[in-house]
């Protein structure tokens, strides 16, 4: 995916500012003894962001645009991260981390499947034990709960 760089970034900032400003304006104005209330500070921020983004977009309009985009490898990693985050509560941390490490290292260039499986299994177990047993931080075990994790 290629993106027309400077201008798109500035337009994005403008849209974020405008959307935020609109949300702030439409917020209920409850201000018991509070002259500003919950709306005014966000309105100020939204307006400033819109103006700044707009000025950057205008400035970029007269300049030559670069272009760039995430590579398919990086998009693959983003997708993998999203799936990993989504699956952890159900699949549990150890299993999901094992799969994440195996697929992630494969995506980044590991070609030996044996090494992939061995390192992923060792690292996921080590990280899990470090957090749950040494630091006593609970992590989800998912359907592996029957193992008593």
């Amino acid at each position: 995916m290629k993106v027309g760089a400077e201008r798109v970034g500035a337009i994005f900032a403008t849209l974020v500012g405008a959307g935020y400003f609109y949300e702030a304006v439409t917020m209920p104005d409850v201000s018991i003894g509070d002259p500003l209330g919950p709306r005014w500070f966000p309105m100020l921020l939204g307006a400033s962001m819109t103006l700044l983004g707009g000025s950057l977009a205008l400035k970029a309009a007269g300049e030559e645009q670069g272009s760039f985009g995430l590579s398919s490898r990086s998009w693959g990693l983003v997708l993998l991260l999203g799936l990993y985050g989504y699956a952890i509560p159900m699949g549990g941390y150890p299993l999901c981390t094992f799969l994440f490490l195996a697929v992630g290292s494969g995506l980044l260039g590991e070609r030996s499947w044996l090494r992939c499986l061995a390192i992923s299994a060792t690292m996921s177990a080590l990280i899990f034990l470090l957090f749950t047993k040494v630091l006593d931080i609970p992590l989800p075990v998912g359907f592996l709960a029957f193992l008593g994790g």
Partner: protein
Amino acid sequence: MEGDTLGHLLYGLQIALSPINIFYAFLGCLVGTLIGVLPGIGPAGGMALLIPLTYGKEPASAIILLAGIYYGAMYGGSTTSILLNVPGEAASVVTTLDGYQMARKGLAGPALSIAAIGSFIAGTMGVLLLMLLGPPLARAALKFGPAETFALMVFGLSMVTSLAGKSLRRGLVSTLLGLMMATVGTDLPTGIIRFTFGIPKLMEGFDVVVVAIGLFAVSEILSCAEEMGKEGFKTAPLGRIWLSARDFIQSLGAIMRGAVLGFFIGVLPGAAHVTASFLSYTVEKRLSRNPERFGKGEIKGVAAPESANNSAACGALIPLLTLGLPASAVTAVLYGALLMVGVRPSPFLFQKHPDVAWGLIGSMYVGNIMLLILNLPLVGLWVRILRTPARWLFPVVLAVSFVGVYSVNNAPLDLLLATILGVLGYFMRKLDYPLAPVILGLVLGDLLEQALRQTLMISGGSILPLVKSPICLVLFALAGLVMVAPRFIYKKGVKLEIES
């Protein structure tokens, strides 16, 4: 605390140097360093998790153990910031700017060493200042009402905005983004839910650790994953392990300035150690003859913030020890722990419980030496992490970072949020929008808004308190100056390229 300070200090050292308390200080530093190295938990969370370790112990021993965890975690946070661009907690964000660049140049060893030495010197100076200036500083800090706090936050934000990046407007966009993120969630004074778009999890707002890991760690790995596909991609070289005398001499001024600045900012309420590390970095950049080196692996860019955040840790103890007021999350946990062992922090703490107060101060000297002994030999070991092939290092860093993100609230949505912020951070890097002001905006946003609203509530809607207070006037003038000054410097031909 007046009177025979030296005698009191010797009494404190006597308590701290008892074999059992040396052991507790060591244990605290060790566990604290581990907590600091692992992203997500942070000093306050780590201390809260480990409070059960203090059950059944003498009050002085319990507090020495917790204080060890506190400054161990403050130091440990720098390790992953330098090696992997993963800030363990908010105060370490600024260390990533130059620390990680040093690591990429094969100078991870000197960066880690200067962080350890800077933390030691600043920590020791902080303890000295705590002993000598504690009571008068606590009284001065009480003069900071909401108006002065607001002015201080404006000053802090303007410093970082003006120097972090090639363009002031882009810096401002980043700062505004952070401030906007800070408004997400429940507005505490009115109970109104803001900008959550019906997502219940967002009612608590954005957690700074989730945002820092997403913006810095995930986006860095996405950038590197892209570079891996290109010709000539190399992982960071191992390079030099030890700090040279020249490096140390170069950094000494930055360490001293960071220590003093960090200590005085640490006394003030709010996110003091974060503000201290950001401000000390920008001060060094401002004073430098070569500001263009910052963000590209300048050793002073590591020494100053690391010194400042350790010294701020000492400063933050002043309101707690002299007034009985916890002014930060970490000191609030210490406050709770003191209550649990039967000690109520108050202005009479030094009279009623000298063993706890002076034992803690004594243990801080011992703890600082212990941290140095513990961490310098480990520098070589940490640096070897960089030898791990990138195809393994990146997924493992992400997996560990995600435990950090998950452990903050046990919320799967945070993992998704960190991923989205990682993509946002990637595009911000590419478009030259600095990332550091987003974090500072997020950390200070709530304080800034509440301070402004409190000021206006007290004055019945008048902004006069903001312009009548001499402290406010000075801070606003300084804020204006730092925003305008870089433009003049730029016009004189000094190119300010600061953002990493």
